[in-house]
């Protein structure tokens, strides 16, 4: 009898617990999902500057690739879809957050000055603007060794797999994307393109290619296949590098195979700065993280919010403070010199992150926007169009 009673009590308690659990789940789960807007993803995402390359990155993630794998695959793709912007002949900077360790690392594979270069190069700055075309301006490309270092540290999928989607894109009848077409048909770019060796790639007779025209690019497809198979080293110490150097030598380049072999990406700590409840991690010089941090550090002291900018005067006030902070920032850009090549300015960028400097700058910002350039340390700044 006692055993039967206990069983009944247990069953009732179990039933009540299950009922409660169902009620709690019924209340919490829809609320949980309702808190995401309809355009939200639930697991992972890639934002590249074209849909096709974002999709390629997303597929890599779905194949259990790491975020670094996805970023590399998306960048390889972007070099084809937006070749006016980037490619294997350029440089790259990665900022990487590893969730399992909580660590952030920067891999800097920005181009470097070759060992042999035009000694009077910088005398040509003014005349070369705005486009500065010509082989004398070529830096040692770091892109592929940057990918290789990032993949060595954080890659999960085989290296070759990251290249396959873009190789397929090129082999399956690639056509000129609309944005590339806009650049190709821009009046101030066209004369330069027409007189350069890019003519053979982007012109059909005397006309630049138009959107959706076929863009056969077998040389790049072959290169990507070679790099996929043999690794990045084939460009830095192998046959591909030799071919590249020979190809551009007759266009005036002094780049050598030794320059390629000597290139090394740098793995460095990020700049780290508290920004309200957030911590901002950004790349140190020669990248621009110190300037971004400086501007946000100054602005955070003004406590802008949706409420403070609700009215027209509030909006003007916020943008006025932003403009003032940007002016002070332009006056600080000289601090982005490469600290490895100019040891004298090694820690100067760290000064930009200090709260005391932010406070000092905030005190110099008032309601006026017509201060002299010297107020912002802008006198003598001659141009800042660095990319």
């Amino acid at each position, binding site marked *: 009898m006692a055993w039967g009673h206990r069983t009944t009590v247990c069953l009732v308690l179990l039933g009540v617990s299950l009922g409660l659990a169902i009620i709690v789940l019924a209340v919490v789960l829809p609320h949980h999902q309702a*808190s995401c*807007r309809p355009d*939200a*993803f*639930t*697991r*992972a995402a*890639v*934002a*590249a*500057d*074209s849909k096709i390359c974002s999709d390629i990155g*997303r597929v890599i*993630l779905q194949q259990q690739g790491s975020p670094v794998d996805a970023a590399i695959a998306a960048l390889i793709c972007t070099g084809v879809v*937006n070749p006016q*912007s980037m490619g294997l*002949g*350029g*440089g790259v*900077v990665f*900022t990487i957050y590893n*969730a399992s360790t909580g660590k*952030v690392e920067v891999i800097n594979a920005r181009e470097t*000055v*070759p060992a042999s270069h035009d000694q009077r190069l910088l005398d040509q700055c003014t005349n070369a603007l705005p*486009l*500065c075309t010509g082989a004398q301006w*070529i830096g040692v490309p770091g892109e592929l060794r940057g990918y290789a270092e990032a993949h060595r540290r*954080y890659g999960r999928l085989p290296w070759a797999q990251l290249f396959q989607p873009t190789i397929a894109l090129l082999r399956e009848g690639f056509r000129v994307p609309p944005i590339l077409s806009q*650049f190709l048909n*821009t009046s101030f*770019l066209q004369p330069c393109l027409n007189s*350069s060796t890019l003519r*053979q790639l982007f012109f059909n007779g005397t006309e630049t290619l138009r959107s959706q025209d076929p863009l056969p690019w077998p040389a790049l497809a072959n290169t990507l296949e070679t790099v996929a198979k043999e690794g990045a080293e084939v460009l830095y110490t192998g046959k591909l590098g030799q*071919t*590249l150097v020979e190809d551009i030598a007759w266009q005036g380049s002094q780049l050598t195979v030794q320059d390629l072999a000597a290139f090394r990406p740098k793995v460095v700590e990020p700049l780290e700065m508290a920004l309200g409840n*957030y911590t*901002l*991690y950004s790349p140190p010089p020669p*990248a*621009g993280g110190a300037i*971004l941090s400086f501007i*946000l550090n100054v602005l955070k002291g003004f406590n802008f919010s*949706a409420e403070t900018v609700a009215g027209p005067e509030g*909006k*003007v006030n916020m*943008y006025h403070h932003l403009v003032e902070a*940007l002016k002070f920032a332009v006056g600080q850009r*000289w601090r*982005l*010199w*490469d600290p490895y*090549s100019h040891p004298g300015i090694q820690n100067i960028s760290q000064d930009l992150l200090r709260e005391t400097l932010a406070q000092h700058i905030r005190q110099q910002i008032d*309601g*006026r926007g017509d201060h002299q*350039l010297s107020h912002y340390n*802008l006198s003598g*700044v001659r*141009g*800042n169009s660095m990319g």
Partner: protein
Amino acid sequence: TSHVSVLGEDGSAVAATSTINTPFGAMVYSPRTGILLNNELLDLCWRHKPGSTVTPPPVPGEQPPSSMVPSILINEVQGSKLVIGGAGGELIISAVTQAIVNKLWLGFSLTDAIAAPILHVNSKGHVEYEPKFNQEVRKGLQDRGQSQSQSQRPVFLNSVQAVFQEGPCVYAASDLRKAGKASGY
């Protein structure tokens, strides 16, 4: 320049910015490899100390200064994260700053934070406005003495890509200025 932001399922994240500098770089093409070469040494032109007119000669192995800012912002307490960066030469820092302010402080959606027209301050201290920038604000800034650039920038090539994680929700946005579109699951 081009930027890609990635957030993985485990919360790991990558912000990567890559460039060949100005459009089509040096406009030097290697026909046998299919590679376009950069013109990054141009960025050495702006490298001089305040008040000095001397531009020091390039040093072999030196990396030219850059506006690239692939960045990650993490809020451990709320479990949120913003992975962000941009393209557009000297516009990069202005564009990324405004996207961060719009998103984290003014409460814009990520898409709207990136799409909002920007302003930029050039090396002469003049303000340049992206077309469609709010005219009322522009007038207000002029009233406060902000001088605008006499020569209007022909094109604004700024383009920001970002992923924002807020608890279980992941938002991703690519800049429509470059016809970008993000992807996720």
